[in-house]
C-alpha cells in the first residue's frame, strides 16, 4: 500500500501516511481526540426518539464505546452507541466507512471487546463474557457472513458448511442448508471453483447451518455484482422471514434501507438515527 500523496510505502493497515500525514483509510475520518467533528444537527438530535418496538428486545446496545490507540492517536470506533434490535428482525446498520458499524457487528459477534457500556443479546451481557464463554457464544448463537466469504480453500462447499455444524449443539443438516441456498449441485466444489455469489451463499449456508439465533452479515454484497448481490439479499431476507432468525446486515449502501425491519444509522461511532420500517419492501422489488 502506498500513500496517494507522497508515494511512500505504508503498512498494511495504516490509517495515516508516516511521512506526510495524509489520511489513507476511507473517505471520512473516524473521530480523533484532537479533532472535533461537526456537531450533529440539533434538530435531528432533538427529534430522535426510540421507535416503537416490533417485538421483544433481542439485542441491546447501551452506551457502547470502543476506543483504541494507534500510535499516539486515540480513536473512538464506537462512541456511546445505543440501539435495540427486536427478535426476528432484519436489521440494517448503515453508515459510511469508519462510522463504526463493523466494530458494532464484531462486538455483537463476540470477536471484539468494548471499552465502555454493555451489549446484551437475549438478556445475556456478552460484553462481560469470559473468553471461553465467548467461544461458546460464537459457536452456538451467532452465524457470521463476511464480505470476502472467508471460506476454507481446502474444503469443499459441503465441508465448509460441515466445519461449522460439527461444532454447534443443534445444527441443521448441511446438505439441506446448501439446498436451501440453491447450491445442491455444487456441494463438492472447492471455493476456488465457485463464483463470488456462490461462495457467499456457501458462507451464508455455513452461518445458517449452525442454526443460530443471530445472523451477522458484514457487507455481504460488497464484493458482488448487482444481480448476485440482490440474490444474496433475497436469501437473507427469506431466511429471516422463514426461520425467524434475527439478521443484522451492515452496509454503506442506503439503497438497501427499504428492505429492513429496522435501520440503524451510524456516523463517527455514534448512532444518530434508528428507524423502524413497519412494511419492509421485498428484495425482489428493490432497485438500486
Amino acid at each position, binding site marked *: 500500500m502506498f500513500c496517494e500523496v507522497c508515494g511512500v510505502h505504508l503498512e498494511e493497515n495504516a490509517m495515516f501516511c508516516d511521512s506526510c500525514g495524509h489520511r489513507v483509510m476511507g473517505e471520512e475520518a473516524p473521530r480523533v481526540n484532537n479533532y472535533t467533528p461537526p456537531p450533529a444537527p440539533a434538530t435531528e438530535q432533538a427529534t430522535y426518539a426510540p421507535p416503537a418496538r416490533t417485538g421483544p428486545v433481542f439485542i441491546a446496545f447501551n452506551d457502547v464505546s470502543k476506543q483504541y490507540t494507534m500510535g499516539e492517536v486515540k480513536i473512538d470506533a464506537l462512541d456511546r452507541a445505543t440501539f435495540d434490535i427486536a427478535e426476528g428482525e432484519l436489521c440494517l446498520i448503515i453508515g459510511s466507512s469508519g462510522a463504526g458499524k463493523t466494530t458494532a457487528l464484531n462486538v455483537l459477534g463476540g470477536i471484539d471487546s468494548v471499552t465502555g457500556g454493555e451489549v446484551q443479546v437475549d438478556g445475556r451481557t456478552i460484553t462481560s463474557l469470559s473468553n471461553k464463554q465467548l467461544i461458546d457464544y460464537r459457536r452456538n448463537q451467532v452465524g457470521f457472513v463476511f464480505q470476502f466469504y472467508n471460506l476454507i480453500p481446502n*474444503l469443499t462447499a459441503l465441508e465448509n458448511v460441515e466445519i461449522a455444524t460439527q461444532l454447534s449443539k443443534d445444527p441443521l443438516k448441511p446438505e439441506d442448508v446448501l439446498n436451501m441456498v440453491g447450491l445442491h449441485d455444487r456441494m463438492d466444489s472447492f471455493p*476456488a471453483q465457485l463464483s463470488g455469489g456462490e461462495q457467499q451463499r456457501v458462507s451464508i449456508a455455513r452461518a445458517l447451518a449452525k442454526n443460530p439465533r443471530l445472523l451477522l452479515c458484514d457487507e455481504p454484497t460488497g464484493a458482488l455484482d448487482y444481480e448476485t448481490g440482490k440474490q444474496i439479499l433475497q436469501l437473507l431476507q427469506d431466511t429471516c422471514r422463514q426461520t425467524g432468525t434475527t439478521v443484522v446486515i451492515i452496509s454503506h449502501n442506503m439503497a438497501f434501507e427499504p428492505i429492513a425491519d429496522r435501520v440503524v444509522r451510524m456516523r463517527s461511532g455514534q448512532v444518530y438515527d434508528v428507524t423502524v420500517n413497519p412494511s419492509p419492501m421485498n428484495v425482489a422489488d428493490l432497485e438500486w
Partner: protein
Amino acid sequence: MTRALFRDTLRSMRRTLPRFISIVIIVALGVGFFTGLRAVSPGMRAAAYEFFAELHLADIVIQSTVGFDEHDRLAVLELSGVENVTLSRFVDGILFDPPLPGSYDPVMAQGMTGAPYVIRVIGHDFEGYDEDNQRSDRLNTLRLVQGRWPENYNEAVVSAYANRMEPQRFSVNQRILVRGDHENLLDTVRNAPGVEERHDGGVIYTIVGVVHTPEFLAMELGASQAGGGELSGYIYIPNRAFHRPYYTTLLVGVAGSRGHAPYTAEYDYLVRRVRETVEEEAQRILAQRTARIGPQLEEEIENGRAELEAAREQVEELTQALADRPAELEARRQELLAETAQERYDRLMAEFEQNLAEFEAAHERYMVAHARRATIPYSREDYIHAQNRMRTAQESWEMADMGLQVGRAAIETAEAILESGDPARMGNAIAILSIYFPMNPGDANVAGVTRMLEEARVDMDFQEIMLEEARLDLEHERARLARFGPYLRELDAYEAARRDILEAETQMLDAQHWLNNADIMFAIMQHEFEQAERDLQIALQEQNFGLQRIANSERLLRQAENLLVTLPDAQWMTNNRDHFPGYTNFGDTADSMQQFAIAFPILFFLVASLVSFSTMTRMVKDDRKQMGMLKAAGYSAASISLKYIFYAASAGVLGAILGTAIGFLFVPQAIFFAYQILYLIPTMPFGFFPLEAVIGVAAALISTVGAVLASVVVNVRNHPSVLMRPKAPRAGKRVMLERVPFIWNRMGFTGKVTTRNLMRNKMRGLMTFTGIMACTALLVVGFGIGDSLGTMLNRQFGPESIMRFDAQANLQVPMRAGDTVQLEAFAPHLQTGDITSILPAFIQQLYVDTAGFDRQVPARLSVPETTENFDEFVQLIDNDTGEQLHLASEGAIINGKLAEIMDIGVGDTITVHWGLQQANMRVAAINYNYIYHWIYVSPAYFEQTFGMPCEFNMVLVNLNPSLRVAGLTGDTLATAMEDRTALARDLTDTVHVMAVAFNQTIIDSVGAQLRVMRDVVTVVFVAASGALAFVVLYNLNIINIYERIRELATIKVLGFSDKQTDMFIYRENIILSVLGIAAGLALGVPIFGYIIRQAEIESMMFVRTLVPWVFIAAGLVTLVFAVGINVVMHFRIKGINMVEALKSVE
C-alpha cells in the same frame, strides 16, 4: 536502487526482523558448521606443524641391532640432505607405587590393560637450553611448561599428558620408584651421588618439571621389551646419568623439512629421498661400527661370564644364610603363638597372686617375730658391744700374759749368762735383754747386766699384778656376755623374718609390674617376630633378585654372544615419523575430520537454503502488488529485484560472517579440546582459511540470493496489471485418500484440511520433514557416538563382555605349562572362594604386520595355558556370525579391526614381531573386539610358530561376585573395595605375585575420561540439532500461520476453541514431525555407520551398532523440540486478532 527504494528495503528488514534474523541464524549455522568443521582438519595439521617445528621433531628414526655411538652420528651427519643428527638412549623400567596400607613393599603399577607399568627412562641433555628454554642444536627437544629442568641424576621431568591424566603419580615434587625389569637399573644409570643404593637396584626419581614432547603424541605409547611389553609412560632424566656411550636410537633431521607441513606429499617426498640415502649408506657405517665394537663385545662376554659367576656365588651365599632363618622364625612364631594375650595375662595374674600370697605369709611371720622381739631388753648391738668388750679384755689379758712370759724367759737367759760369767756371751745377754728392756750400749758389762736384771725382776712382779687384773676383767666380761645367750635365737628369727618379707615384697612388686605391662610385652614380642619375618622376606627377595640377576646376566651374556655372532649381519631399521606413537593416528584423525566436514554441513546448507527459499518466496509473494505498482511507475525489473536481492544478500552475508566467526573461532577449538584426551599436542592455533570462508559465503549467498532470484524473477517479469491483481489462492484439490471413503469419512475436518494442506504445500511440508529428519538423524548420530563411547569399556571388560576375568596378576617369574609353584599364592583364596578360578596366560605387547602391508601395528598376543576353560575368562565371538569361537591348536584368532586395517581374512598369514623374534601365524578366525588389537593363540600353536614353549607371565583371575565392585553402592561397595585391596595385598605379599590389576579399576579410570568425551559429543549434537529444528520449525510455522491467518481467524469466529484452532496447524506439524522422525531415525543409521568409522582411531573399534535407547532418545528429544515450537506457536495463534485478520483482503 533509488533512495526511496533503499529506505523501503531497510524498513522491510526492520519490520520483518524475526524473519531476517531467522535467515541469518540458519545461514550462520550452516556456514559455521561448514567452515568450523572444514577448519578442524587444517587446524590440526597446522597445530602439528607448529608443534613439530618448534620442538624439532626428527624426520627419520634409525634403530640398529648393534646400537650407535658418536662415530655413527658423525657419519650420518655427513650424508647429503641430513641437517641434524641426535643420539638418543633410554632404558625401560617398571613403575612402582607406594606400599598399600599395612604393607611394606612398593606396589608394582599397572598400565591400561593390567600389564606391568613399563616406564621409559629417556636420557636428555638439559644443559643445551637457553634462557627461554629454546634450542636448535638437537632434535626432539622439550618444551618446559612447569617446574624446572632436572639437575641431579635422580631428577626427572614428565609429560604434560601424564601429568594431566595421572596427577596422583606425576605431579611436580612427587617421587616415583622405577625398578629394572629383572635387571638392576643401576647397571644402566647412575643414581645421584650420596644416595644410598637400593637393594632392588631401583631409583627413586623426583619429578621437577612438566614438559611437552613431540615424541609421544598419543595415549598408546607402543611396545617395550620390558614387562608385558606395554609401554605406559616415560620420563626424561639427565643424559649424563647413563653409564655407557651406547645409544639406542639415531634421530635424523632432514635439511629443509621444517619448510614443509607434515602429512603432505612434499614433505614425504623430501624425507623419502634422504631416507633412501641413509639406507644406502647403512652397511658402510655399520661395518665401521662392527669393527669398533667387536673387541669390546668379546671383552663384554668375558666380563659377563665373571658377572654370572659372581651372581651365582651371591645367590649361593644368600641361600646358605637363609637356611637357618625359617627355623628361627618358626621358633619365634611358636613362642608368639604359644599363648594368647589373654592367656598370658591370666598366667601373669596367677603369678602375681601367688607372689602376693607369699608376701602376705611372710608378713604374718614377720609380725610374730616382731612382737617377740619387743619383749627382749637387749638389742643385737648391745650383744655385739659386749662381745667386743670381752674380746678386748681377752686380748689385753693375752698381751699381758705373753709380755710376762717373754720377760721371764729373758731374765732366765740373762741369769744363765751371768752365772757362766763368759764375757763373750755377755754381749748376747745384753742383746737378749734389750729385746724386752731398753739398755744403753755402755751398760754391756756384768754390772750393767746385773742392774738391768734387777730392774727386770721388779718389772716382772708388776706385770704379774697387771695380768691378774686383766684376768679378772675378762672373767667379768665373759659373765656379762653369757647373759645374752637365751635371747640370741629370738633375734635371729626376727631378722630372718625381716629378710623374708623384703624378698617377698620385691617379687610381688615384680609380678605386678609384669602384669601391668603384659600388653607392651606382647607387642614387643610381636614386633620382634614381624621384624624377623620381614627380614626373611627381604632375604627371600634378595635371593629372588639374585636369581633375577643370574637370569639377567645369562640373558646379557647370551645377547652379547648372539650379538657377536650376528655382528656380520648387523642392520639398521629406518623409519619415518610413523615411528613416533600417535603421529600417524593424528594425521588419520585430521583426515577423518575432513570427511565430517563434508557430510555434516551439506545437511545444514540444504536446510538453510530451503528455509531461506521459503521465507524469501513468501516475502516476494507478499509484495506482488507493490512490485506491480513499482513496475507501473517505471522501475525496471532489475531495480525492483534489487530490494529482495539486497535483503537476502545482507542476511546471507551477515549470517556468513557470523558463521565464519563461530566456525573458525570456536568449533575447531572445541573439537580439538575433545581430542586432547587422545592426543598430546597441546594447542591449536586459530586459523583463517580463505577458501573455506569464500565457499561458506558463496554457499550462503547461493542459498539466500539464489532463492530470491528464483522467486523474484518469475514474478517481476509479469505485466504490472497481473502483479497488482492478487494471485488467486491455490485451489483446493482432492487427494487420493478421498477415493477411500472408508477412511476419509472418518476423518475430522482438521484431518481433511491437514491432508489437503500437506498435498497443497508440498514444498513447505518437505522442508519441515527435512528439518525434522536432519534433526533426528543428527541426534541419532550424537547419541549413538555417545552410547558408543560410554559403553565401549563395559563391552570390552566386565562379566558380560569380552574380557570377563576380574583381575590379572603379574607373576614375578614366568611359569611354564604344568608348573604349580607360582599358583600356590592363589590356593588359599581359591579355598575360601574369594577367587573362583584362575588361568595362567602369556600376554605380551608386540608388533604385527602382513605381506603387502607397509608398517607394523602394535598388538597384544594372548596365550592361555589351557584352552579348555578359556571362555570363562575371555569370550571370543565371531565378528560376522556372532557365534562363539574356540581356540584351536592351528591358527590364531585376531580381532576384526586388525583384520580391517591390514585387509586380511581367515586363512591369511600375519607376522608377529616380538623383540628380535618373529613368527608367522595363520588367521583361523576373526573376533569381535573394541579396545586394542589382540591375537589369541593356543600354547601348542605358540610353540609351533615360535619354536619354543610358551612361558606364562600372567594369571587371569575370576573373583567371587561379592568382590566385584561393579553395581555396588554404599557400605557394600566399601566392604568389597576393602576386601579386594586385602586380596591384592595378600597376593602381592607372596614372592610369586608382582602385582594385581582389577579390570574394574580400568573401567573406572578410563571410563571417566570417555564419559567426558561422551558428554561433550552429546551436548554438541543436541545443541546443533536443537538449533536446526528450532530455526526450521519456527520459520516454517510462522509462515504457515501468516499465510493462513484468515483461515484461522475464520474458524475462531466460527467458535473453534483455542485447542481446536491449534490443532488446525499442529496436525500438519505432528504428521510431518512423526514422518520426519521416522525418516531421521532411518537416515541416522547409515550416517552413524559412516561417521563412527571415520571417528575411530586405529587402535580401537567403537561400538558400531545402535542400541534401542538411542532411537528412543533421538525421537523423544526431537519430539520435545517440536513440542517446544508448538508451545511457542500456541501463543502466536492465540494472539491472532480476529478483527484485524479479517479486516483486509490481499
